[in-house]
């Protein structure tokens, strides 16, 4: 469920980064207010635990496949929502940076999808409501499974919305929803089972561990609802831009800052100077660099088929790649030569 950068547009990535950064600041403030020194090492070590727990698999009867713990729910049960959100955010950041699991630009989306929903929706609204204080039995198991399903369904829907809004994948919205939601229904059941099994064990072995350190849930649900509303509006706004026009993110920001559809260089100054210089030095007289990437052309849904352009694009692309590799190779050779002398 970790989204990669390759499928996200800067507008969507940036929006979700903003939403997530706001949440991180808010949670950091809340955890600080709890003023419990024990939280610092506990959060770090439990983050490491989640990492490890995701390596341990159990078999799902009658299917031949296996599943593991997701993390968000059990962290919230142990640490409370604010600290749990921060831990999930740190786990996803380390996964993105060290294990290439999920992209950096997509990090905002990933933290929101996998951290916000379990900590602020599934746990307080579903798990607490059903399980109350039950530490075993039907209540615990049904609460875990239902909460895990809801959390993952919301997260998966987030992935679909963000991918569709980015407009890089061609997967139609409906097809993508039909692909993602059922898969995550199954994953949700599995994650719920895993969570309940661990919670039931801890409840038997050491019940006091299950009292969240930094408060059980937000005292009022207003900030949660507000946060959801704001993100829904933001997401909706992003989606509608992309649905209504095919402006890409950069064009949009250009339009926003300059008030015009395309950025036009001023007639005097650097742009004009460069254009003149280019006219003079161009090795191919009728060949305009600028023309080839003008936003008009980009906005065209079906690029015109032109054999010449295609071949030159491929040849140029391959050679540029080779040149880039060569630059790296030369630099490396220089370094090793310097070391030897």
């Amino acid at each position: 469920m970790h989204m990669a950068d390759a499928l996200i547009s800067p507008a969507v990535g940036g929006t979700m980064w903003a939403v997530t950064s706001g949440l991180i600041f808010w949670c950091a403030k809340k955890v600080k207010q709890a003023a419990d020194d024990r939280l610092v090492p506990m959060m770090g070590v439990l983050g490491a635990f989640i990492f490890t727990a995701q390596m341990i698999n159990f078999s799902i009867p009658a299917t031949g496949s296996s599943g593991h713990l997701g993390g968000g729910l059990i962290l919230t049960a142990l640490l409370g929502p604010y600290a749990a959100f921060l831990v999930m955010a740190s786990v996803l950041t380390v996964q993105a940076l060290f294990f290439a699991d999920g992209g950096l630009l997509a990090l905002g989306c990933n933290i929101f999808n996998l951290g916000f929903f379990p900590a602020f929706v599934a746990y307080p609204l579903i798990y607490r409501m059903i399980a109350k204080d039950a530490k075993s039995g039907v209540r615990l198991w049904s609460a875990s499974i239902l909460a895990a399903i809801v959390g993952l369904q919301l997260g998966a829907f987030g992935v679909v919305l963000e991918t569709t809004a980015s407009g890089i994948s061609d997967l139609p919205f409906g097809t993508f929803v039909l692909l993602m939601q059922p898969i995550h229904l199954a994953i949700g059941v599995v994650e719920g089972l895993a969570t309940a099994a661990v919670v039931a064990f801890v409840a038997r072995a050491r019940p006091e561990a299950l009292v969240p350190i930094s408060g059980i849930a937000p005292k009022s649900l207003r900030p949660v609802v507000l946060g959801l509303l704001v993100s829904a509006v933001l997401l909706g706004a992003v989606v509608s831009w992309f649905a209504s026009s095919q402006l890409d993110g950069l064009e949009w920001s250009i339009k926003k800052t300059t008030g015009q559809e395309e950025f036009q260089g001023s007639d005097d100054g650097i742009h004009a100077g460069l254009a003149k210089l280019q006219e003079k030095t161009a090795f191919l007289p009728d060949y305009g660099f600028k023309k080839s990437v003008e936003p008009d052309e980009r906005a065209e849904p079906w690029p015109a088929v032109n054999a010449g352009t295609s071949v030159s694009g491929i040849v140029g692309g391959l050679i540029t790649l080779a040149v880039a590799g060569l630059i790296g190779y030369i630099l490396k050779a220089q370094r090793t030569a310097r070391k030897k002398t």
Partner: protein
Amino acid sequence: MDELGRLDTPLHRLDARTKIITTVAFIVAVMSFPRYEVSALMPLFVFPFVLMASGNIPAGSILRKVAFAAPFALFVGLFNPWFDQHAALTIGSHTISGGWLSFASIMVRFALTVSAALILVACTGIHHLCAGLEQLGVPRLFAVQLLFLYRYLFVIGEEGLRMIRSVQMRSTGSGPLRLRTYGSLTGHLLLRSMDRAQRIYCSMASRGFDGQVRVLRRTALGWRDVIFAGGWIAFFIIVRNWNLADGLGRWLTGCGL
């Protein structure tokens, strides 16, 4: 990755903030290209290649990690050729559909962004990275959380592996565990982790921990940082605005005259 982060090259000596900002600028530049673009992305490969060479980072280790993470992008990207079958490109008598073109674009973007993120870590190291993040305004609590998580990742990970190994040695075969066994195994690991956190807290408290984690590594931005970030960002802007690869191709093949 840890060892790479401790190397001492001009690239490693740059301020962490510089490298973070440049990498983010790079990723935004890559992602802002239109969806059918492949050739214009190629000059951007200069960035990871130059960084790998000047930071003494072995290409193999980065490539392996990129390949390891590829399946998700591959999974979603593979639908593009399916849904988008209009002809976008012809080479001789062969026609390539827009879907394959955008699929290729997705994979190139993927390789660029993932390798850039990995190289950022490999040429900075987690300690400098977190200090840099904090200096850039990330809440200290979160920066410290990242450091703690990274520090105990391997400790708890090894503990988990030992537990799995002992279960495997006591049972025939090495298939996945039954849910019941899983619950108590993972629960035990959780309790052990929490005990460890308690011990860490005690040892921190006995050394004078007062709830504030102090980060010592304060670094200053120098002229090298300005040149590095400024130079690369200028390069990204040029590549974003002019299709250098296409220009080179046209010049070499004589098309577009």
